[in-house]
């Protein structure tokens, strides 16, 4: 569905103008910490999905905990999983692209 006046939606900007300050002596620490938080968010997202899924399936009597352990997915699913792992890595290490330094704008009034 294109928006009314014929213009389509541009990708929304994801980076704010301006630099991020580093707090640790070595800014690598800031980057790793930032990645850790993103990773934690990914971890929680996944965990919530799995827990929700298990609860749903068990409530419908679809499987027993043993069957879940034994199951193996097909080749196509394995390739999909690899794509998802690459995106996960890119998201977790997005902090490596973050510029650090002083903000350029100060209150000059």
């Amino acid at each position: 569905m294109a928006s009314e006046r014929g213009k389509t939606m541009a990708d929304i900007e994801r980076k704010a103008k301006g630099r991020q300050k580093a707090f640790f002596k070595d800014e690598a620490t800031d980057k790793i910490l930032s990645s850790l938080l993103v990773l934690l968010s990914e971890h929680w997202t996944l965990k919530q999905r799995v827990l929700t899924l298990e609860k749903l399936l068990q409530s419908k009597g679809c499987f027993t905990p043993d069957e879940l352990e034994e199951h193996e997915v097909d080749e196509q699913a394995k390739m999909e999983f690899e794509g998802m792992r690459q995106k996960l890595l890119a998201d977790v290490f997005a902090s490596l692209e973050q510029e650090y330094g002083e903000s350029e704008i100060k209150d000059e009034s």
Partner: protein
Amino acid sequence: MPLELQHQLNIKKTLDESSKLDFVASLRAFVLNDMANKMRSRYEDKVEPTFERKHKRKPESGTEVHKALMDEQYFQFYSSMRCTAQRMVWNSVIDPIERNYDSLSETATKLIDADNLDENQSLEIPRNVSALDVHLSPGGYSKEYNDHDITTGAIYDNGLAVFSFGMMGLNLDDIGMSMANYIRHTFPDFKPEKIVDFGCTVGHNTSALAKTWSDAEVTGIDVAAPLLRYAAARSKSQNLNVKYSQQDAEKTDFPDNSVDMVFSSMFLHELSAKVRKKVFKEAYRILKPGGLMLHMELPPADQLGAYDNFYLDWDSYYNNEPYYKGFRAENCQANCVEAGFAEEDYLQFTTPQYTYISDDEYQQKINQDDQDMDDKVGRLSNELSWYGFGAWKNNG
């Protein structure tokens, strides 16, 4: 579950999207409550005594506290995590907005008409808005992706819901509700007929004014068109009669002596000192005699201790808020007087949150409270209260 916006522009999130929103809100609550308390203890138990031994006195200003804390590892973790959490707030809402953009835009367009939105495409966007992505929000307030765009509005509304981790009410309007009801209870004879909200953003607090004084003609002004479009649709979908108009608060279209109340919240600290002075003068100009100028803001530095000043000014150092500290260093009463208000017509107060208690309880609370300034004023934490100040325009 993340807070669902209480209007038609609410986005249906996927399970993963809502898990991420939940996570970021929890992370913010963890950093701003747990970690903030621990950082304060570290400061009191270790950093301050060290400073005192060296200088034979305690730190006297927020700046000194800040300097003393810089090498403290806990401060570094707190700050670094808070910065990342801030970026995550915006990023967590951009995905679902982008995914739903077309239908969101269509819903908004249907709700907007000439009665509730007045755009001015030739308005020059001031530098504090155009040159800066305040509080690290990508695109800031004014970036437009097309000529009827609402993106920055959607980012702000959804982002605020995560940012405030449930502390600003379901409608994100607790500031407006608390301010308006404080005035309603304290000055029961004051019945404003015409109200203007300066720097209204998505109209979340403007709506509170329209709810409190339902007969009043309420107008929200802002310089950023995508925010105003979103605001107009938001208010309309809540059946609130609010008009939005694209104007610069420095120089509005309202005639002299035409408005009963000029309101703003969290607005003044995003202006340079020079612009701020002009905005006060403009408020004075458009107010009727007997009218009220009312601002909700961060509490001024001279009313708080050194540590609390450091804590509130954190945003100025690290959250792309270059004017915040300068604003807090000013004297609010002197600003009002300089703009033409009489010294004795100045008022200031703190108010508890209105949203979570009944109207009766609220009234009791504001009558009892000695309304002290303390470390709970103006910061998102348990038992928070809001600071307000302003002045009546002299009748004579």
